[in-house]
C-alpha cells in the first residue's frame, strides 16, 4: 500500500506492506537508524518515536497506522525546543554509556516536556519507566532528565 506521512517536517510517500513495522521502515528504508530495536515487542522503549506529539513504540506501529500522521524521530528532535533542551541536558550530564537506549529515552523525555510544562520526578519516572537501559542503572538518566526539565523552563 502507499502511505503518506510527515516525517521530521518533510512529507513522505512510500510503498510498504501494511504490517511492516515502522521502526524497520526507518532503519532499513528511510535511512534513519536512530531508533533501535531492543526487543521488538514493546518492552524496552529503544524504538520510541513521537506520533502527533505523543511517544509511541515504533516496533508496535504497523505501517497502515502511519497514514496522515506527523512523526518526529530522534533525528528530528533538534527542531523542537524541548528536544534541544533534552539533548543538551542528556549530553552534559553524560546520561548514557553504550548509548543504544539513548534515542528512546531522549524521544520519550522530549514528548513528556511537550505535554507537561513542569514535570516532577514522578512524571519523569512514569514517562521513562518503560525504557530499558542495561548500562547505567538509570540514575545518570534521571539526574539529566531533571536537569532537562529545569532547562526547558528556563528556555521558555
Amino acid at each position, binding site marked *: 500500500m502507499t502511505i503518506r506521512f510527515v516525517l521530521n517536517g518533510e512529507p513522505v510517500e512510500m510503498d510498504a*506492506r*501494511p*504490517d*511492516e513495522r515502522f521502526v524497520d521502515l526507518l532503519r532499513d528504508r528511510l535511512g534513519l*537508524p*536512530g*531508533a*533501535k*530495536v*531492543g*526487543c*521488538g*515487542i*514493546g*518492552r*524496552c*522503549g529503544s524504538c520510541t518515536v513521537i506520533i502527533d506529539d505523543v*511517544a*509511541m*513504540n515504533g*516496533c*508496535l506501529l*504497523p505501517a*497502515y*497506522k502511519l497514514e496522515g500522521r506527523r512523526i518526529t524521530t*530522534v*533525528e528530528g*528532535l*533538534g527542531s523542537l525546543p524541548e528536544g534541544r533542551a533534552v*539533548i543538551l541536558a*542528556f*549530553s552534559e550530564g*553524560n*546520561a548514557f*554509556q*553504550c*548509548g*543504544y*537506549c*539513548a*534515542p528512546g529515552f*531522549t524521544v*520519550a523525555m522530549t514528548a*513528556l516536556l511537550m*505535554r507537561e510544562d513542569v514535570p516532577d520526578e514522578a512524571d519523569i*519516572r*512514569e*514517562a*521513562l*519507566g*518503560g525504557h*530499558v537501559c*542495561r*548500562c547505567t*542503572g*538509570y*540514575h*545518570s538518566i*534521571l*539526574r539529566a532528565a531533571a536537569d532537562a526539565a529545569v532547562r526547558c523552563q528556563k528556555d521558555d
Partner: protein
Amino acid sequence: MKKSLVAPQIWHPEEVSEAWSLLKRFGKAARVLAGGTAVQLDWAAGAPVPEHWIDLNRLDDLRGVTELADGGIWIGALTSLSALRHGALIGKKLPMLCDAVGRVGSAGIRNLATLGGNVASGSGCIIPALLALDAEVELFTAKGLVRRNLRALLSSSLTPMEGVVLVAIVVPARLPAKTCFEKMGLRRAFTPSVINAAAGLWFDGAGNVVKARLAIGGGITPPQRLSAAEHSLIGIPLSALDWTSLKRDMLGEMRVPSDAFRSAEYRRNVAANAIIAGLGGGVALDAVAGKASAHCFASIPAFVPVPYSEVEVSRAAMSERWRMRPDVTAKVEGAFTYLTDIRKPDMLVGRVLRAGYPHARILGIDTSEAEALPGVHAVVTHRDVKGLNGYGIVIPDQPAFCADKVRYVGDAVAAIAAESEEIAERALALIRVDYEVLPIVDDAERALAPDAPLVHESGNLLADLGLERGKVDEAFARAAHIVEDVYVTPRQMHAFMETEGGYAEPTPEGGLLVCVAGQHGYRDRMQLARILDVDEECIRIVSSPSGGAFGGKDELTVQPALALLALKAGRPVRLQLDRWESVLAGTKRQPMRIRMRTACDAEGYLIAQEVDAIADGGAYASLGASVVETALEHVTGAYRIPNVRSRGRLAYTNNGFGGAFRGFGCNEMLFAVESQIGRLAEKAGLDPVSFRVRNLRQPGDMGYLGQVVAPSDRGRETLAAAAASDLWARERGVSADGRKVIGVGLAVALQGSGLGSAIGDSGAARLSLAADGKIEAAFGAEEIGQGVLALIQESVARVLGCERDDVRPVIGDTAKTVDSGSTTASRMTYVVWRSASETGPELSAKLLAAAAKEMGKQSEELAIGAGGIYDARRNVPDVPLLSFAALAQSLGEAERPSAECGFAFPISHGTVEGNARFLHCHSAVLARVAVDRVTGMVEVLDLDQHTAAGPVMDVANYSGQIEGGGVQGLGFTLTEDTLIEGGTFTSRNFDSYMVPMIADAPANMRVFAMEELDAGDPYGPRGVGELGISAVSPAVAAAVADAVGIWVVEAPFSPEKILIRTGGMSAPAE
C-alpha cells in the same frame, strides 16, 4: 510485530455496524485491532497472524469519556490508556481506575493501547478494577447495541468477545466508598501481571457493608469475582471483620493457575493479602507460618578507628572534574553509528538456522531447495568451513556450524544470505535437517553421574579445580560456631541492548572486513582466521563501538556466519539477531550451586572454610572454566581464613552455553562468602562491622593463592567508611503502615583485575601526531559503553599536558591499532593508564624536539599545552606558539613523531597455586531494603558503594560503572533468571526476562571513592568495570536478614519463600 508471509488485508470500518459485519464475514480469519499492542505479543510468541485486520481507529465515536445523565461514566472502548490516565474526569471520580491504568504497560504503550483492547483481551490487567466497580459494557452484537454487566458477560462463555465489537465500558453512578487495586508483578513496574486484585465496598449510613465486589485477574489468571467472600462482608462494618477468615474464604474460591514464574499458591496468597491490606486489614500474617518478626540489629555498628579520605563520585560533588564523554552528544542525537546500523545498497541480509533441539544427532542437511530460491545468494553449513570448525577462547569446542550433532537449542546449523528479510526467512524454512533426538542432560550435578548422556565425547566434566591448606577438619572440630548452606546463583543474561550483529564484506584486495562488536578484536581475528583457514592479515576486524557487552560479546557471536556468507556470496552481508534469537543463542552467566561451610572461634575469628561449587557450563567451554577458577580465587573474600578446602567443578549440559559475565565468578562467590560472614557474626554475637574488622586481610598479606599482591589494600578503610554511614540511622524496622519491614545490610568485596598469572596478559598502544594535528592514540580496545574513549583522552592528555580534545582515540579496528588485549576483566583502565605513562614522555620529547627544530629554539624552552606548543616560561595560558596542526603540517609523514609501547599486565611472581590476580580493588556496600509483607518482594531503597580503586580518571565513567554494575547486581539478586526447561528456554524476550527498570533501581544511590594509593604504589588506577556488581547481592541479603531475620540463599530471591517465612502465606504441604 511478526510478519506473516502474505500481507494482511486491513479494513477500516467507518461505523461500528460495519466492523461487526466484517467480523461476522471473516470469522476466525479476522481480528479486531485498536491499539494493537497486546495482540502483537501473542503473535511474537507464535500465535497465528490472521489474514484480515479490522482497524477500529476511524470510529471516533468510540473515543472519549463522558458523564452520563444518570451519573454513570461512559468510557469509549477506543479511549487510549494514557487519555484515561491523564484525563481529569477519571482522575477525580475514579482514582482507583486511574491507578490501575497506570500499572498497564509503559507510557509509550499506554499511548497506543486502549481500554477496549485491555478488556476485550479477556485477561487485561484492568478487568479486576472494573469488576470491583461493578462496571458494565456496551457491545455491538447481532441484536445491535446492548449493555451487559461485565462480570455476567465474562462468565457467560469462554470466548465472550467472539463475534461482538466492544463499544464502551460504563461505570455505574453509585460508586463504592472504599476501593483498592493492586497489580503484583515479577518486578516493581512495567511487569507482566503475577496477579491483580481489586475491591470495592459500598456502605450504609451505619457503616455496614451493603455491597462488596472482590475481584482478581491479570496475566494467566482468568478474571473472577470472589462471591463467597463478598457475601461474608455484607451487613457488618469493616471494624468487625475477621480478616483471617476473609482470607481463608478468598483463598478457598480463587481459581488460579501456576506457571514457571510463580506458583498458584503464591498468586492466591498475594491477591488475598493485597485486598486485605488495601481494605485496611493490615498484613495478614498466616497463623501457622507467621511468627517471623522483625529482627533489627537496631544498632549502629561499631566505629572503626581507621583514617580514610573519600569523595562522593558525582557531578555535583566533583563538578570541576566533570567532563563530557566525546561520544555522548552523537548518542543522544541518534547520530551515533553502531555496526548494526549500516545499510548499503548491495547488502544482503543474513539469517542463521538454529538447532531448535537441545541435543540431537544430525543425520543430514539438505540446502538445495533453499539455494534454489530466487534472491538467495549463499547458503552455508559446516561443509563450507575450510579450517577448524570450532571456536572458544579457552577450548575451541563450539562449532561454527554443527556437523554431526547439536548440543543446545541455539546451535548454528546453517546460514543464509538473501536479498531481503522475507526471502531469508522463507529460505530458512526450506532447509531440511534430519535429526535423531538424543536424551538430554539439563542439570550440572546429574551431568556428572556415570550414566548421564554425554554432551561431548570427552565427558561432561569440563573442569575440576580445588585447593586445600591448613588443617580443615581439625579446625572445624574446635569451632565455636559453624554456618553451612547451599547458595544458588542465576543464569543471568547479559541483555545488552544491542543484540549480536553487524556486517561483513569481501574487500577489493581479496581480504575480508568483519564489523561486529566484540571485546577483543585481535582474538576475534585469530579465531576467525582459524575457522576460515586464512592468514590473520587477510581479515580486518572492526569490533567497536558496541551497544553493550558485559562479557557477552567476549566470545565470537555471529562473526563466523557473517564471514562465511560474505565470502560465499561475494557481497556485503548484514545480520543482527532479534532478541529471541539472542536469548536462544547467546552466552549466559553460568548458574552455580555453592555449598559452603564456615567456622569461627568463640571470639569471632574465622578458622575454617569448606567450599564445594558446581557450575552449569552449558554445551560449550568458552570461558566457563576460568569463571569457576575466578570464583575459587575469591572463596575467602577479603578475609584471613587459615584452613580452607575448596573445590569447583564445571559440567557440560544441554542448557544453552555459559561464559563470561561481569563479575566473572567473583560476585557469585561473594554472595555466598559474605552471607556466611553475616550469619557467623550473628552467631558470634557481633555486629557485621566488628566481625569483619577482626577478620579482614591486612596490608602486606599474601593473596589467597599465595601470590604477592599490589599495595594499597583498602579493606579496613572502605569498611570504616561504610560503618560511619548515615544509612544505618535511617528508618528501620516495621513501616508506619505495617506493610513493609526495612533493614540495612553490609557486604564487602575484594575484586581482582586482569586475566591472572596463568594466562599471557599484555597491553600495548601507539601514540602519534596525525596529519591534522591531533594526537592519535591507537589502542586495540573496545568502546562498550564503559567510556574507554574518555579514559584514553584523559590519560594521554594528563601525561602530555594538553587537552582531552587534542587527543583522538583510535580503537576497535585491527587495521589501525595495536593489540592491547581484551576489553574484559576490569583490565583496560590499567592498560590505558600504563600505556600513556610509557609512551607519553617519549612522544612529548619528540614533539618538543620537532617543534624546537621548526621554531629554531631549544626543546627545553618549550612545553606542551592545550592545542600545541608553548613557551615553557609562560605563566599565562594563551594561544600556543605553534599549534599541533601547524607542527603536523610542517612535517612529512615520516617525520611526524610517534611512540609505541608493549608490556606485560602486572602479575605476581613466585609460587602461586592457580591463576592469581595481582591488582585488586575494594568496596564496602550498604543496601537498605524494604521487604513487602503482602508480596514477599524486596525493594531496594538505598545502595551505597564505598570503593577504593586508585585515582578516578573520569568521574562519569567511574560512577557509571559502579551504579550500572550495582543495578545489574540487583537484577541478579532479585529478578533476573533465564528460565530453561528441558534444555528449552522459557524466557524469550523482555516480557519473560526481568531486567531492572527505573522503578527497580534503588531510590537513592551513592558512589564514594578513595583515590589515594600507598606511597610508592606504582600501579595507578585500577579498573572498576566489575567492582560495582561484586558485593551487591550479599549486601541485599544482609539487609533482608536485618529486616525479617531470614538469610535468603537462592538468587534471584524468591518472593514466595520470603512470604512464607514472613507469615504472608503457609508453606505448601510437602
